[in-house]
């Protein structure tokens, strides 16, 4: 659906996007993840034909953004970082205007406005002036504007920025609902958002793609080994530590102190070994109480920091892939 190859965008003094390539399949929902200023918005602007690339190419639904911008524009819905709203318009009037801009008219537009209004939960504010709406409603009107012409591709630039937690959850679930019908690219610097909403992640930093993978693959690939948190009651620190150390496949045991007679450890396995059942068995066999045994999964946050904070990190995923 979307194909980007060697895309580069240079400005007089900086390179905003440097030779990035990726593809997005039909119906996929991908997260475009990166710190502020990484080049997310620039890439999205190229895809929406707002900015021309300096080098490389981008294709949406088989149409080149430079050579056939009109065809591309017909097929995308775009929600910029600040929703493009006219405060002096009423919501319905605004959606009518956008619909007409996207070549819709008459009864089909009127029906679509009602449909989109219900979809985005803005049907109760339709006759209101946009200037009177709260931030959350504005964002939803922005989203409604992006999907009004039922585009094949939906490009959302930080759709949840500036919303309160409840609104964030609502927006996310709305985006998830939309995923079936549209191919969605979503940019964000909020990591849980990607974990919750997206199937695939493209991590970008300083204008370069540092990782592209599914969320689960990315987690396991960077982790390599399994980490487990263990809490045991009714035993001394040293006893438990040596017992855990004796379990097959355990690489390291790190004590995390104790609290109310419960001792806590973080145990890391050797790569590829599953140690949780064995840990449980050895604790129970020794006659201690197993309070808790949980997987310390590598959060996307850590991956992100690892990938974006040091130069060595850029090489790491490549090494893993070999």
């Amino acid at each position, binding site marked *: 659906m979307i194909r980007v190859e060697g895309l580069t965008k240079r400005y007089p003094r900086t390179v905003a996007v440097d030779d990035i390539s990726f593809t997005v399949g039909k119906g996929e929902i991908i997260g475009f993840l990166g710190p502020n200023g990484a080049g997310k918005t620039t890439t999205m602007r190229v895809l929406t034909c707002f900015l021309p690339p300096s080098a490389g190419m981008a294709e949406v639904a088989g149409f080149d953004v430079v050579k056939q911008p009109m065809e591309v524009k017909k097929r995308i819905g775009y929600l*910029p970082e600040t929703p493009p709203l006219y405060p002096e318009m009423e919501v319905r009037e605004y959606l009518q205007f956008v619909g007409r801009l996207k070549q819709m008219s008459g009864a089909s537009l009127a029906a679509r406005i009602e449909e989109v209004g219900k979809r985005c939960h803005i049907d109760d504010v339709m006759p209101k002036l946009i200037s009177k709406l709260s931030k959350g409603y504005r964002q939803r009107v922005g989203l409604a504007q992006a999907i009004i012409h039922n585009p094949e591709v939906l490009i959302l630039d930080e759709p949840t920025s500036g919303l309160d937690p409840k609104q964030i959850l609502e927006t996310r679930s709305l985006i998830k609902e939309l995923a079936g019908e549209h191919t969605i690219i979503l940019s964000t610097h909020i990591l849980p958002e990607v974990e919750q909403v997206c199937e695939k992640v493209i991590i970008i930093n300083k204008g370069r793609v540092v990782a592209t993978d599914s969320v689960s693959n990315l987690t396991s690939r960077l982790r390599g080994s399994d980490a487990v948190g263990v809490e045991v009651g009714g035993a001394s620190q040293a006893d438990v530590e040596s017992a855990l150390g004796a379990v097959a496949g355990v690489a390291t045991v790190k004590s995390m102190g104790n609290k109310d007679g419960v001792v806590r450890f973080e145990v890391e396995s050797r790569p590829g070994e599953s140690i949780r059942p064995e840990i449980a068995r050895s604790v129970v066999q020794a006659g201690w109480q197993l309070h808790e045994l949980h997987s310390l999964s590598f959060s996307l946050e850590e991956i992100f920091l690892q990938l974006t904070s040091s130069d060595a990190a850029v090489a790491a995923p490549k090494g893993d892939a070999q």
Partner: protein
Amino acid sequence: MNNVWVICRKELKSYFASPIAYGLMAFFALVSGYFFYAAVAIFVTRGMEMQMMGRGMPMDVNEWVVRPVLSNVSVIGLFMIPMITMRLFAEEKRSGTIELLVTSPVRDWEIILGKWFAALLMYAAILSVSLVNVSVLFAYGRPDWKPLLVGYLGLILQGGCLLALGTFLSTTTKNQIVAGAGTFAVCLMLWVISWLTEFNTESYAKVIGYLSVVTHFESFAKGVIDTKDLIFYFSMIFFGLFLSARSLESLRWRS
């Protein structure tokens, strides 16, 4: 063409959603009303003088009232045009709605033409307020309506040309005030440029004088349509809109 109309309609609505349309109309009604009153007063006094001196020459209403009033109105236009065009693109750039327009399946020239056309209609709506004055003339006198019509056509053309330049200046900035002040400076310059060269007969002076929008209006005020003036206005309109298109395009390469 449909897109031009969609944009034009939206612009017109936003003019009338803000106080600017009503403010300008009120301002224009007041100032043009004053000039009209002054012209009529002069006309009446001169008419009485003529009669008292025993020279019963008929005085032409068009010559004594319509023409000076139209000339004055064309100058008032110079002051109103910046107010009409300043927000056209500057506001869209500031609020980010320009992204919606240029990522929609609409061509740049359709956006520009739609906005310019809306500005022109707004200007025409403001001018139409002065029809109240004109109707008074028709109620109490017998002015010739043809030169009057030509005069209004001239006002619209002059407005169209300055509005096109204003549209261009609005594409160059995010700040409405800057756009407005710039447009005002250009309007003023195109007006006063003829003062400097009026009594100069050298060829460069003629060229400079030719650029003055107001001198081209003079023949319209007399009720004369001259192709020279029509060509000047149409080419200025085209020039302004062309610059706007280039400027809008450059927005993509620069931003």
